[in-house]
């Protein structure tokens, strides 16, 4: 019977496995293949070489990589710091108001990311909502807040907020109240409770939220293009340029591979450290 169940399980999983392999793994393999082709070819039937990777090292593409990873890291840290109090309140304090908040945040996702970013541009640009009013009311002349690195990080924080908030709230809701109360009863201050109880027990939520935010932010393009006005060039930008203007598929593929490997390693490491079953609500 067990064997039969096992077979039936595999059989019913088969269609999904085929779809996943074709739609997910195959394109990755194509990209991996192109990344070891000579420069500017459009076919996989060539003598493999590592010229694209050499170009990445020699032509300063590592700077874009550093900007992407750096800004994603800073955005993730900021996201964690600002989401924690709100996530805590959603999980432990707000009660039914949490639902209202959840809906409000989710609804914002219904509007396309680019449109929301354009909203910020209209708000922040010179002659925009803020600067315009300042000039009209106080006569103060100043530049818009756009086109710099902090505003890109701001954009990342703004766009990926839900991806940190919800996993974090989920993680915090797994911290048993009585463990927090017991720690306090045994003499721990609020900060000690946070450090000894909340953070370790909410770790699965912290890891998932941070990974989601970091991975998405590291591959983000619109924030640096729209808000940042390409004040710095991010990795995703380089990939797009290589594939389009550059007409250099192997270089684009190699750039993608670098990003994929770094982020993939990080994600697998992070996920291996936490009990995902726990956050998915399954009992151990």
């Amino acid at each position, binding site marked *: 019977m067990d064997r039969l169940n096992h077979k039936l399980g595999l059989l019913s999983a088969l269609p999904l496995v085929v779809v996943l392999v074709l739609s997910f793994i195959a394109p990755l393999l194509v990209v991996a293949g192109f990344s070891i082709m000579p420069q500017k070819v459009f076919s996989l039937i060539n003598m493999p070489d590592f010229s694209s990777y050499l170009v990445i090292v020699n032509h300063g593409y590592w700077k874009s990589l550093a900007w992407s990873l750096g800004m994603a890291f800073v955005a993730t840290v900021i996201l964690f710091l600002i989401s924690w109090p709100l996530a805590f309140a959603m999980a432990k304090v707000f009660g039914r108001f949490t639902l209202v908040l959840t809906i409000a945040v989710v609804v914002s996702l219904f509007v396309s990311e680019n449109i929301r970013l354009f909203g910020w541009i209209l708000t922040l640009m010179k002659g925009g909502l803020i600067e315009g009013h300042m000039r009209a009311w106080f006569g103060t002349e100043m530049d818009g807040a756009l086109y710099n690195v902090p505003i890109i990080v701001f954009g990342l924080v703004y766009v990926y907020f839900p991806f940190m908030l919800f996993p974090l709230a989920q993680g915090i809701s797994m911290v*048993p109240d*009585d*463990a927090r*109360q*017991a*720690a*306090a*009863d*045994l*003499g*721990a*201050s609020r900060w*000690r409770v946070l450090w*000894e*109880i909340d953070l*370790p*027990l909410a770790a699965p939520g912290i890891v998932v939220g941070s990974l989601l935010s970091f991975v998405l932010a590291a591959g983000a393009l619109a924030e640096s293009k729209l808000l940042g006005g390409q004040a710095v060039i991010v990795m995703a930008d380089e990939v797009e340029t290589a594939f389009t203007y550059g007409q250099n598929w192997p270089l684009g593929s190699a750039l993608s591979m670098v990003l994929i490997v770094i982020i993939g390693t990080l994600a697998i490491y992070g996920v291996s450290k936490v009990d995902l079953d726990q956050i998915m609500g399954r009992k151990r």
Partner: protein
Amino acid sequence: MEANAILRLQGIKKRFGSFEALRGIDLNIKEGEFLTIVGPSGSGKTTLIRLLVGMDNPTEGEIWLRDVRIDRVPANARPTCMVFQSLALFPHRSVGENIEFPLKIRGESADKRKKRALQLLELLRLPAHYYDKRIHQCSGGERQRVALARALAFDPEILFFDEPLSALDYRLRKALEKELKDLHERTGKTFVYITHSLEEAMVMSDRIAIMRDGHLEQVTDAEGIYARPASRFVAEFMGEVNLFDIEGTAQGGIRSLGTEVHINGANGDTGVHLAGGEKGTLMVRPEFVRFQQSTETSDFIVKGILRAEYALGSRIQYLVEAAGGAQLTVEKLREDRYKGEINDDVILGWDLDHTHLIREA
């Protein structure tokens, strides 16, 4: 105020909105005693213990720990601690780390902490290698001991317990009740225990406080609660009991109001005294009631019909329907069992010594 009181509660009230959970609690807890607060669910005992440990503040009243007023002091600044109903062990920490937690908070060195943790493991009869075990590898009884060890590591002035045994199966609970009493004697600490089981309270406590609807109904030792309850509520709370409504007569005697009780006082004195017209309740526990022949006599006699017989292990319980429909419970040891048939007419009798008069305001 008693000189040896470690904790004094004065007029403690707690309101949640319009609901009054505690309606004026006055209680002195003595240094080194094992006091159990017993009440049915909803009686306010959990609210009370939350105030005692500092997880909540009273709406009115004062709590004094010796000569320090503590009712507004937060839990983490009080020298008391609690063993939670859920035990509240830290699942991400080992047994040793759990026990050492309060010492770590206090900033003691790792060596000292470990030494103390091992001492406590020994005190609670857990093997030393449990130090490195994970909490989820421990059984229910072992977790209980770890929670106790952690609380003792804190070295509290008073150790509170919020029904920590309620989740365990019967046999383990019985064993741990005795262990807890033993631990109380060995540590000499003041234990304040909360439970809904009076039986549990009887086994362990020096004194028992019975709680009902946000106030204390009676505070005394186990013997007093069992034999001399202050109210019908207390009498009925401790298992089976036979209660009879009575009234004082103008002649200085008493008469039964409900079930007909024949009262045969020597020289006309029944030994039970009520003013004329004053109402009261006579109480007799089932084990003091005997089946008797019509030739025998007792201070109190009730006639009825034997309706049912239940085996309770070492004892047998009988249900007797008295004239008027009231039901009486009689319990006999197996060797003294009643040798008759169901639906027999029976005569029940008991003595004044085993009768208690409850006067209610």
